């Protein structure tokens, strides 16, 4: 597409089928302790597949 470039992202709808294992880090546990979000978490399963 000439005027639209799509960045590689994880398909959230598809992750309904593949996600939910719960092995990921608890959101607030690691660094912030005051202003939680999930955006900077990583998926353990995806990381495992990359290894």
């Amino acid at each position: 597409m000439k005027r639209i470039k799509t960045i590689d992202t994880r398909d959230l709808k598809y992750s309904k089928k593949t996600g939910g294992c719960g092995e990921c880090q608890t959101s607030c546990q690691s660094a912030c302790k005051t202003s939680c979000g999930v955006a900077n978490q990583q998926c353990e399963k995806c990381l495992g597949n990359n290894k």
Partner: protein
Amino acid sequence: MLHQYKLNGYNIVLDVFSGSVHTVDDLAYDVISLYEKKSKDEIISEMLDKYKDDDTVTQNEISDVISDIKELETAGKLFTEDEYKDLAFDFKKNNTVIKALCLHVAHTCNLNCEYCFASQGKYHGDRALMSLEVGKRAIDFLVENSGNRKNLEVDFFGGEPLMNWDVVKQIVSYARSIEKEKKKNFRFTLTTNGVLIDDDVIDFANKEMHNVVLSLDGRKEVHDHLRKNINGKGSYDTIVPKFQEFIKRRGDRGYYIRGTFTHNNTDFTNDILHMADLGFTELSMEPVVCSPDDPYALTYDDLPILYEQYEILAKEMLEREKSGKPITFYHYMIDLTAGPCIYKRISGCGSGTEYMAVTPWGELFPCHQFVGDPKYSLGNIFDGVQNRELQNEFKLCNAYARPECKDCWAKLYCSGGCAANAYHATGSVTGVYKYGCELFKKRMECAIMMKVAEQANTK
């Protein structure tokens, strides 16, 4: 739902429910914003008028853009519908395992930081240290309640956890002694002000701690203004050399230099860059959480300054990356391809359900920020969670719990935000801490822009 914004020369379109991110030119940006509101003919007419001085914008060209948008819509990458609402409540209701504990091993501190939410480490109670017996029981409690989860997190927190260091080491040793048999993998974190760091702490933590969080507010004058010892002397000169030695010997293991910014240093980017000048690369800087009456509380007048600071930081980080000297900022870490699944994104932070704080005497609270508030006592590690009504309240805390979030584009990035911040701002864990939302959204815009810029730079 879409979110469109312009930042650092990029036009960015975020499709909220698929997680897709697009970077587009001005024409496509405008057409996308009109796509659902106007007919094809109306869009063409409006665009021809707006771009009458641009030879490249013809009727055919606009039609092509509309076709491309249609193609992305069909592929589930634009204008996708929300189909997660029921999932949010069901998933959290059925999910009853605990996978993380924040162990308050010391309700006491050797610093007297003015802004401390834990009231100089005591959490509005008496000074106390966790015994080894309580620590071991906390580990057993976590294992017993963790179901099939393999990775368990334990954060040594306080007050100042190094004031009870021998017990920390023995708790780690106990957990390691049972993890194979119990088929678990403990990930320990130490959060410290650094005053008591010595060779023993460095060697042990660098062997056993998955992550260390070291508190430094940035420039000496900023740090020393609020982070003082009990005699009123700033702690910067004591801790900085210790942190530098700690990190020098840490190799590639995780750490964060973590600061707090307040109304006193709204130019906090200078503090982050100061941390980088000291040789640290993994950085975190949090807005202060305090009463609006405190003299250092952030104000609404500060917001435009803070937005600008986040932008300055993002641009500076891109420059540093290009020049081969990258730094990491915790809130700009966003993995668009291997980030959280939809269940994680909708189910909230996990406080009170999969994450709890344990006091020195073994009492359970939904998270470290509720410790000391008797209304929020969940039970204890000996008898388990007893206040099920309270726990159910936290089970309902998720990305769909608040009507105010219904139309917010960022809800799948914050997952409903911090329950403690919501409580302190509104009196309810399902309230909304609007100030925090504004900062969060700005950080997400910057983080996504950086990903767009990185991809543009590699192509």
